[in-house]
């Protein structure tokens, strides 16, 4: 996230101009079905192409994942949060993540620190041009899908990240190997790519505001392809942090027109905010 605040502002500006009819309501992923379209040389459903969210205001993790959008921030900018869509991303009855008691306090602390940072690690990692991690990257934005025998690649142009999903049944990495983006193993069930992810580090949040997980996080993801849409459901299992597994849901549409060339993304190289926020704590560039 080059400048998270700017993006939040852009999202709000777009939301402000969006007609009420564009408001999202909670939708459901269709049940797993047969894949009737083209197949790749190795027999996978051929789903290659570019997928985007329906509108920029649906960029969940730039807001508070639990609320869809951040009511405090909307009031601060003179808008009534009730007038704006709140796509329900967290699919629990109250739209909230089932944290354990200590973790709920920690999540509030993270959020408080985010607004009044006194340490570098109080900031959202991506606001410092560090990686987002998963599943945030896949909740946040669309991706270009490229397929090769035994492999599916998700390329996220916004942060210029490649995710490699292994379909070849290879052994998982040892638990001690922790990665921002984890280790992903998948299989096709009809029109649905089912992915199991693990080996995550604890440095990346779910969103800008401090929804977090531990390095024990395991995720199960379902990418269901139907009618030029990609439905994404990710279930988080983390017994150190959550009282039970919970699922987040976002949707994407396939770009059927021309797609711009993905040009260079260089975030860290130009990052200057932290040295202004914390003079002396960060190395001048």
């Amino acid at each position, binding site marked *: 996230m080059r400048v998270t605040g700017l993006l939040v502002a852009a999202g709000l500006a777009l939301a402000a101009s969006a007609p009420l009819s564009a408001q999202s309501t909670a939708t459901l992923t269709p049940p797993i079905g047969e894949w009737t379209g083209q197949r790749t*040389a190795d027999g996978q459903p051929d789903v290659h192409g570019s997928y985007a969210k329906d509108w920029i205001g649906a960029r969940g993790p730039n807001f508070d994942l639990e609320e869809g959008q951040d009511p405090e921030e909307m009031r601060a900018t003179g808008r009534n949060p009730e007038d704006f869509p709140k796509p329900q991303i967290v699919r629990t009855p109250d739209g909230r993540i089932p944290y354990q008691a*200590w973790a709920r306090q*920690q999540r509030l602390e*993270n959020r408080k620190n985010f607004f009044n940072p006194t*340490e*570098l*690690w109080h900031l959202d*990692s991506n606001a410092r*041009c*560090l*990686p987002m991690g998963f599943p945030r990257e896949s909740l946040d934005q669309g991706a270009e899908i*490229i397929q*090769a025998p035994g492999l599916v*690649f998700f*390329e996220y142009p916004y942060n*210029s*990240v*490649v995710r*490699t999903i*292994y379909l*070849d049944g*290879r*052994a998982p*990495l040892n638990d001690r*190997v922790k*990665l*921002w*983006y984890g*280790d992903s193993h998948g299989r096709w069930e009809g029109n649905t790519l089912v992915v199991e992810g693990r080996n995550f580090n*604890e*440095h*990346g*949040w779910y969103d800008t505001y401090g929804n*977090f997980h*531990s390095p024990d996080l395991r995720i199960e993801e379902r990418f269901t392809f139907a009618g030029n849409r990609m439905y994404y459901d990710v279930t988080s299992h983390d017994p*150190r942090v959550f009282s039970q597994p919970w699922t987040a849901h976002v949707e994407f549409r396939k770009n059927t027109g021309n797609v711009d*060339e*993905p*040009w*260079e993304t*260089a975030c*860290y*190289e130009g990052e200057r905010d932290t040295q202004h926020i914390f003079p002396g*704590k960060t190395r001048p*560039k």
Partner: protein
Amino acid sequence: MLLVVIAANAAAWAQTASQAMPRTADGKPDLSGVWQVLNSAAYDIEDHAAQAGVPAGAGVVVGGEIPYQPASLAQRKRNYENRATEDTEAKCYLPGVPRITYMPYPFRIIQTPERIDISYEYVGALRHIFMNTPHPRGPIEWWMGDSRGHWEGDALVVDVVHFNDQTRFDKAGNFHSEMLHVVERYSFIDATHLNYEVAIEDPKVFTRPWKMQMPLYKRIETTPRVLEYYCYGFSDVYTLPAGR
């Protein structure tokens, strides 16, 4: 003499290449897979003696020496002296092309007919080589340049321009300006080796064009992975509170 030997080697390599070369459905050489170099060019692309932290090494510059203009030689000396703080690798910045190829990290080539992408372990860099299309009009200064590819017979030829003047060729201070023009050639030696040739032009820094050449080795483990090295992502990161 060295040039002749290299040319003879390349010819011998080319003879064995056609039998073993994997091909895509559209008949092009299939570069897909994980590759890596095995040389000391990341330290110094020229021949160099050992010093603390640097093994001795044979360079990858064809003919042995880079044809610097006199003023540029002085700049290289300054670069060498400030390498611990000012080199792009010391800063964990995107290192430019071709340097990222011969850093000691694996990279995965993802090949489609319209685009060949390279996913590098180092800082998670992702490079797109757009096939059979022109460069966008400049001036543009990108860390990794703008890459446009085409096939010349069985060689993938990639023309790269629109660089900035911040990246260097190695840790020894070898450098270029924003006028850098790189032409890479990737061609199979056999199924698990590529011949990687790089032509370098930069009229602001060098007296004439020059070349690098080295083999690329396929990572032949049955399940190779390109993992992560976000070298800027280790300090002051969020962690769980103590005891959790």
